[in-house]
């Protein structure tokens, strides 16, 4: 048995009195693409954000390559915070891509990608920009290196955001609906970059409503509903018939487009 890249154990997240995640257990196998699907509000973003430590879980454990992220929990349930420096090192193995791109508007594409290399990793400007440029080449945007985010299309912005995460050489990449705020004609260029990344063997967790992508690139599909993981499995099993009634309803209600191609 190989060690999971990320292991989630009995993860609970509450906002005040309302539980958003009710004890999630999930293994992310290394070198594969794991897709998270589910109706809006089911807790997909919350789960992904806990994996990126943007959100602190109420209880439960997340490990990255076997090391605790954020908190460690003793068998008796005592939680202890991981020291910040250690936690930053663990967290740096994870790259995150957001639905809203979140590029820094006052920096060029090259500036966005090289920023952390310079400020966090203290690389010289020349070295940082060389590495950043290599990442921009990879997402096909070397010609746009000097452009500001406001001068780029949504698809280009998202590719810069992917390059920004990749520049730090993460072992795992998390994507939260990376194409949901893009016009349909721009989703393809982002999905292609993600396909290339998957082909290189990057460990990826993808929250997406692109059922076609999930079915063709995903190794495992996990279906989340009302804060519970209803089931996980390979695409053939999850999308094959008979389907779980909640999944059937989800495919019908939310995804006319993607569902029809799987019918």
């Amino acid at each position, binding site marked *: 048995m190989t060690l999971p890249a990320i292991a989630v154990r009995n993860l609970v997240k509450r906002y005040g009195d309302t539980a958003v995640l009710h004890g999630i257990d999930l293994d992310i196998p290394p070198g594969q693409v794991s897709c998270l699907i589910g109706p809006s509000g089911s807790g997909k973003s919350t789960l992904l954000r806990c994996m990126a430590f943007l959100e602190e879980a109420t209880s439960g454990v997340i490990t990255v390559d076997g090391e605790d992220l954020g908190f460690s929990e003793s068998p008796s349930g005592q939680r202890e915070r991981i020291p910040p420096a250690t936690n930053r090192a663990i967290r740096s193995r994870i790259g995150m891509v*957001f639905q809203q791109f979140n590029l820094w508007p006052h920096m060029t594409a090259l500036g966005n990608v090289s920023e952390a290399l310079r400020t966090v990793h203290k690389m010289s400007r020349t070295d940082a920009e060389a590495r950043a440029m290599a990442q921009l080449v990879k997402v096909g945007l070397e010609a746009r290196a000097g452009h500001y985010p406001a001068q780029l299309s949504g698809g280009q912005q998202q590719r810069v955001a992917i390059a920004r995460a990749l520049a730090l050489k993460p072992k795992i990449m998390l994507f939260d609906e990376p194409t949901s705020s893009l016009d349909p004609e721009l989703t393809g260029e982002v999905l292609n970059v993600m396909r290339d990344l998957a082909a290189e063997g990057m460990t990826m967790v993808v929250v997406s409503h692109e059922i076609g992508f999930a079915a063709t690139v995903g190794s495992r599909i996990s279906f989340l509903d009302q804060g519970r993981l209803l089931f996980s499995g390979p695409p053939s099993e999850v999308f094959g018939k008979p389907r779980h009634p909640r999944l059937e309803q989800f495919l019908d209600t939310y995804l006319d487009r993607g569902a029809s191609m799987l019918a």
Partner: protein
Amino acid sequence: MSFDVNVILAQLPAILSGAGVTLLLWIAGTIGGATVGFLVAVGRRYGGRILGWPLGLAVEVLRGTPFLIQIFLLYYGGPFIGLALDPVPAGLLGLTIYGAAYFSEIFRAGFAAVPRGHIEAAECVGLSPSQIVRRILLPEMTVLVLPPAINMAVILMKETAILSIITVPELTLTVSAIGSQQYAFVESLFLLAVFYWVLVEVTDKLGRYAEHRLSRYRFSPT
């Protein structure tokens, strides 16, 4: 009696000295007000309830009372609490405090307008909290606060005229004194209006130019 601004313009050296005082008080008061206002905004954002509550109350009181009353209280009431200041320092202090209250609100809105996701993206690539403030929050905020900050500087320019009532030898005091000596009240008021208006226009144009230069850094709200 005829309308003749030359009786006033004849005393150019005195007018220039008054204009100098106005300009210096305005520039120093704006820089001081913006600096203190920024610190107040930071205190309210990161200082918790202990710092946030009194700062919030002070800002509300200062924004809720006329500058004229504040400056009277500071100059004539100050000595009762051991703060006996000459007109110029009192005027500068008053302008700074008054400006700080408004600037702090501008910066507070600026902090709040930087999208949470931009900060989260910085956390994800490993920037420390202080690096996030320096590299992301402040530069992004500058673009956002520039228009209201310029507006505030213009308001402070006009408020300097109020300092004449505590005998700060600035432009309004100087020119209206000449006006009463020469029995040329209307002329003096007319010249004052022209002077302030020109200064405000220049400030505004400079501000617009800076805004234009920075506009490409603006994010398009998604």
